[in-house]
């Protein structure tokens, strides 16, 4: 080969083909899929919580894409039905994930709606799931001698709170829990005709 123009243009055509297949066609086909009727837009608190989820890299251990029943027992584990494009209409950026070091969270709001559970679990996962390898997130909480009037106090299992102080959730933790509670794709996966 001795023509650099031919070489580079050939290479770029190859990349253009790949880009049409994996970027342009999905762009035309699914980018502007309308939200399913059951899907609610995120509230401001939920969106702030989503940013906390992104900032701390939750996506590296938790997927948000249950697979079909004939493929894997995701539904049997209570993770929900297989999702479709319309389930992600409000997701920017997408958080589909590629790892399940922890369980799928697409329907965690249905499975575990309790704020107290989520806050305590973020403070110390092993108090709730003994063999969990999820990190604890003490930096999302404050230790106080006495809670102020507006504070969200975390109710922890006996013996976990340090003696003589209360654990108070910082706003990031509260927002994050709002986001987790909002993860609910339990409505039908197809739009009614």
């Amino acid at each position: 080969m001795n023509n650099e123009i031919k070489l580079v243009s050939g290479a770029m055509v190859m990349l253009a083909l790949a880009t049409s297949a994996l970027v342009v066609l999905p762009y035309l086909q699914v980018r502007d899929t309308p939200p399913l009727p059951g899907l609610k837009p995120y509230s401001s608190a939920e969106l702030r919580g989503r940013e906390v989820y992104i900032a701390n890299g939750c996506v590296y251990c938790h997927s948000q894409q249950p697979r079909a029943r004939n493929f894997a027992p995701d539904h049997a584990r209570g993770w929900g039905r297989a999702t479709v494009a319309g389930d992600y209409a409000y997701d920017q950026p997408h958080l589909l994930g590629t790892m399940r070091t922890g369980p799928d969270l697409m329907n965690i709001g249905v499975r575990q709606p309790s704020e107290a559970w989520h806050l305590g679990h973020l403070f110390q996962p092993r108090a709730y799931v003994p063999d969990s390898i999820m990190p604890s997130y003490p930096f999302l909480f404050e230790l106080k001698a006495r809670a102020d009037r507006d504070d969200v106090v975390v109710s922890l299992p006996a013996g976990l709170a340090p003696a003589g102080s209360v654990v108070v959730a910082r706003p990031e933790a509260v927002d994050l829990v709002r986001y987790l509670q909002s993860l609910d794709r339990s409505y039908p996966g197809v739009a009614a005709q």
Partner: protein
Amino acid sequence: MNTVAILLSAFVLSFVALLAFVWSQRTGLFDRSSRGAEVIFAPREIGRIEEPAATAAEQGSLQQAIDAASGASSTHAESDELVDRARADASTGPLVFFFFCCAIVWLLVASAAGLVSSIKLHEPDWLVGQAWLTFGRIRTIHLNAVAYGWAPMAGLGIAMFVIPRLLKTPLLGSRFAFAGAVLWNAALIAGLGSIAAGISDGLEWLEIPWQIGALFAVGGALIGLPLVFTLVNRKVDHLYVSVWYMACALFWLPVLFVVAKTPGLHHGVQQAAMNWWFGHNVLGLFYTPLALASVYYFLPKVIGRPIQSYNLSLLGFWGLAFFYGQVGGHHLIGGPVPEWMITLSIVQSMMMIIPVAAFTVNQYQTLQGRLSALRFSPTLRFIGVGGLMYTASSVQGSFEALRSINAVTHFTHYTVAHAHLGLYGFVSFVFFGAIYFTMPRITAREWPFPWLITAHFWLVSAGFAVYFASLTTAGWLQGQAMLDAARPFMDSVTVTLPWLKGRSVGGAMMVAGHLAFAAHFVLMVLNAGPQREKPALFRRPFGRIVENEAAG
């Protein structure tokens, strides 16, 4: 839009394009002579080893082994070509050195972050007080320090060294590349700082905020300019295989990066498809071609024997360019993306076996009968293992894309092990070897402590073997536990624990190897250690220049 029509038109278009290329390259494809493969040698240089990383004694043994295999005694190359090569080396020296310094700093940063992440997976309450040290951030710092620090700095540094040699032309406009590299590293520092502070675009491989991403784009363009200038002003007619890979990698990356980082362009599920188009192509169309180019240059160069089949190289190159770009969808098997796209990616993943086989057969044939060279050449040892790992990781990747296997391995540590087989076992090993070759050429010094090279090789090889075996086992067991609805989810966690600890042990050995490598690099730069005679091949050309001038 009708999906069958889309799929069909993609296939038809692809095949027409591939045929067009085979046709346009036909003079090369059916050329039975290997002239194309010989351009990396000066006249009468074939049969002559070049291995600046070896000691004088090792170089002697290496030459003997090669002579014994080819049944001829070595000749001395004509010196005009060697003078050209020395000029090309001299034109790139300071620049390549700068790239390597950056690469090694990022290698150490990435190693530390990687080891901390690994330990955190089995010690979840370790270092949890600081937000920037939480697993989700430090793991991301590890990935980005490798993806935008170590791998591109080492790979581009090697390209800066190799391309002027291959084009027999001094590097033009190296100050642009200096400026670009400074900008690139500044952007990376800012990017890693952002991730540590929790500011992230949120997409895997693309976490660094797009505002900083723009700096990478400008820096990358500046780094690419001198290589384009040199290509256009080259003195040789023929472009060697390594030039194809390196030149195309430099044109592919900006397209990938700009399309992926343009804010507001991608959304929802489509963004996920784009995410893995980028994630896989940055491996397949950037690091892989840079590393393959290094193998195609250094392996024949060290043993003084041209690549056996030039036609296989063509097949390997265009096969990679065509198939690799379309495999990214296999990261979303079972996900909510269009089914045709996933099927297309699985098909192309399997097709990757063609270029990989072409590469493997070609390198094996070139080394055949000369395997003893591995004993004497540090460069070849790293590059040989790296090449082998390319074959292993690619074949593993092809099969991992099959739905039946993917059902087990998807979402598990198995994928992480596979990614390291590619980016570490293959790409990083090849870059280590290439740096061992290059440094003596650009600094005019020998590696002061050969035992440190040996220590580096065995630490990273043994460490990586432990790493890969542990993590692959962990992932497979994890996947099987997760697929069995009768077992609780926590089984898929507890079953991995001993193996995750094994991975940390392997990882620690790899880090120790990197420390040996970095320390050796520093010692060489400081001119510490026993001074031995300078590598013979390096000094001779300059000696000749002086003689010529004296005669003239």
